[in-house]
């Protein structure tokens, strides 16, 4: 919640000296409120004013990151409660827990799962982002061994070091502090020591307390000790508590500018039943978790969670697009049908899905129309006869297939003559208007 111009004005020297380049202090204050001026333009502003204004202009949910290099994971900075208002900013981090009491074999296999988790979906690389190593054994040397194993196998996978013992924490940080892991964490009993470690080793600190009141006091205390890169855990485990706490945390941060809860949230979603675990993690993705901790990372479970995260974190104002190219569906032969559509990802998914349902191997030419659907692209002049003809010519498809027939969406039947004119020798066939008519259409051609 930013300050108003008048509130800012009260903090300025009120000398109207014009050194900032504005005619009056009030005019300068108004510009500050609109974020069109910066406070350093005023040479006479007091330190007190700087502090208050600095705090008020900070993002309501603090940016926090961990890991290094191109694997750095950014969290926080969210500005809305509902995704239709504005894009959710930093996607939920998926972390898998490794307990140091597990057998080495199990640990190795989880690390393997993390390393091989990457898949490509609609042009985005998706993967399990981080590993949480939990000192369940409470034994320092075992913890060190496991950290060494994980960090040697999974170099550059961001880590979360989970222990409440400052001694164990320091031993772990000595090994991997340079990777910027999260130290998780601080509680009411160890807050000072943990805060000191986080300061010394320059790592973000996970803070846990039971309930939002206790959590707020604890983060304030830790902040007063000079640590501000925090990740918070309200102790919510049950779905009911996750949705309640996460909603109240985000509301408090955004609507009340309540700083003690203006941090990324970590939720533990582990369940005996792995499908239920996927649902709890899904709740986290939809309802404001910055990190969801999982007990396992099976490929089938990852696929659902990666996809949901991608869907929820897309920009509601920008349509999702797929790459312009000729997609092969099934095992098309030179005489298999060739269809064309636009590159709006939803259009692509639905059309390719229906072609697949038809079981008729085909080629689907997907043309770049800036992510618009067929009718919209046509209306916007991006899916025109000339552009379609040019795309087909430049695609080189003529050398790959033994026919010259192009099937166009029924909604742009009007283009068929013009395309034939611009693509000499080609025959244009009008396909169904809706994708669900494709299976019947393709099958009937085969018979």
């Amino acid at each position, binding site marked *: 919640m930013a300050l108003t111009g008048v509130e800012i004005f009260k903090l300025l020297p009120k000398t109207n000296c014009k050194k900032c380049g504005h005619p009056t202090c009030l005019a300068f204050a108004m510009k500050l409120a609109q974020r069109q001026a910066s406070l350093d333009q005023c040479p006479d502003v007091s330190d007190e004013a700087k502090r208050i204004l600095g705090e008020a202009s900070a993002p309501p949910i603090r940016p926090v990151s961990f890991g290094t290099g191109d694997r750095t994971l950014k969290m926080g900075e969210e500005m809305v409660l509902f995704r239709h208002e504005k894009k959710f900013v930093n996607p939920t981090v998926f972390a898998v827990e490794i307990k140091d009491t597990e057998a080495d074999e199990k640990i190795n296999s989880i690390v393997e799962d993390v390393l091989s988790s990457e*898949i490509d979906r609609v042009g985005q690389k998706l993967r399990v982002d981080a590993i949480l190593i939990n000192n369940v054994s409470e034994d320092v040397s075992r913890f060190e061994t496991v950290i060494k194993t994980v960090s040697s196998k999974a170099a550059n996978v961001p880590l979360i070091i989970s222990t409440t013992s400052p001694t164990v924490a320091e031993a772990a940080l000595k090994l991997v502090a340079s990777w910027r892991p999260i130290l998780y964490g601080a509680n009411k009993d160890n807050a000072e020591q943990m805060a000191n470690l986080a300061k010394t080793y320059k790592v973000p600190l996970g803070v846990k307390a039971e309930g939002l009141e206790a959590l707020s006091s604890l983060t304030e205390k830790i902040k007063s000790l000079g640590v501000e890169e925090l990740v918070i855990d309200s102790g919510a485990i049950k779905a009911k508590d996750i949705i309640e706490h996460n909603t109240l945390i985000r509301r408090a941060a955004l609507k009340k500018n309540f700083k003690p809860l203006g941090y990324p949230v970590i939720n533990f979603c582990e369940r005996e039943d792995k499908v239920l675990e996927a649902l709890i993690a899904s709740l986290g993705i939809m309802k404001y978790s910055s990190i969801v901790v999982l007990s396992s990372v099976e490929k*089938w479970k990852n696929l659902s969670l990666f996809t949901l995260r991608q869907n929820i974190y897309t920009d509601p104002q920008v349509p999702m697009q797929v790459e312009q190219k000729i997609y092969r569906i099934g095992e098309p032969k030179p005489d298999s049908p060739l269809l064309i559509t636009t590159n709006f990802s939803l259009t692509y998914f639905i059309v390719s899905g229906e072609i697949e349902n038809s079981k008729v191997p085909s080629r689907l030419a997907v043309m770049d129309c800036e992510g618009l659907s067929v009718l919209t692209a046509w209306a916007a002049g991006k899916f025109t006869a000339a552009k379609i003809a040019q795309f087909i010519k430049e695609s080189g498809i003529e050398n790959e297939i033994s026919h010259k027939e192009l099937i166009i969406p029924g909604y742009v039947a009007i283009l068929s003559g013009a395309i034939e004119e611009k693509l000499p020798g080609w025959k244009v066939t009008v396909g169904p208007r809706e994708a669900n008519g494709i299976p019947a259409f393709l099958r009937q051609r085969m018979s």
Partner: protein
Amino acid sequence: MAFVAPKESYSGKVSEVTIGTDKTISFGGENVLPFQSFEGTVPHRPVIAYEIQDVPPGDWPETVKSVYEAVSSDPVSWAKFCEDKLNAKAIALRLIGTHPDRENRSAEDAKRVVRDVLSAIKVPLIILGSNHVEKDSEVLVAVAEAAKDKNCIIGKAQEGNYKTITAAAMAHNHKLIAMSELDINLSKQLNILITQMGFPKERLITDPMCSALGYGIEYTYSVMERIRLAALTQNDAVMQPPMLGDVGTYVWKVKETQASENELPHWGSLKERSITWEAVTAAAMLIAGAELLIMRHPEAVQVVERFVDELMQ
């Protein structure tokens, strides 16, 4: 700085709908966003109905088709199986066989199936057409009469056929699903048109059109959230019907519920993958605001019920 929980109170409330006669079930009625019982009341759990068809599910993927192998050749035994063995709280009978591109069964055939199923089960019945605008207006009118006074849900009324279907639902005392295509304004407009015919808004269910995970679910999700916010914060009466997530039919046609692990090893086990796909889609619809779901796989239904347990208690 002391923490004060920033609770909201809303002026509007979702309408409460009760269906069935022998065994009834209610949903809706909350005056808060989904599962936010910390600031208001959530009187009912969402209801999950099992989907069955008037014709055998030849086009369903193996993972879900095999569950019903022994019973799905006959809608009555299929319905009984859902009620007796799966403890279905409601059953959704989709008359897909009436579609002109499918078996093109007649309205008379559909009436007979509906009568038979109704006399075999005690739980409430949802009766769905084949989503063919013209044929549905014939079929749904006939089945609404066949199910007279059984307090079913009839659907789906769309822009192109709502008049006849609404009149039939009104005359025979049913609830009605109003479906529009992923647009909050179209949804509102259809609800207005239907209520202007004299159909009580308390008997309406809104279907803003479902989508599967990975296939546009974010559109359904946001349209549902916006409808619900309009219902609660603006107390907009025509936006207050409970919402339907017609999950199974969208989920069980996407590649993720069909492709084998051999074909796509990096997608993992098909069985778990497809069940999770249906369950995650359903969970997203619930969190966005759906109070009524139609689903197919019993394991997906069961895990979503457990998810709801955790959200409610």
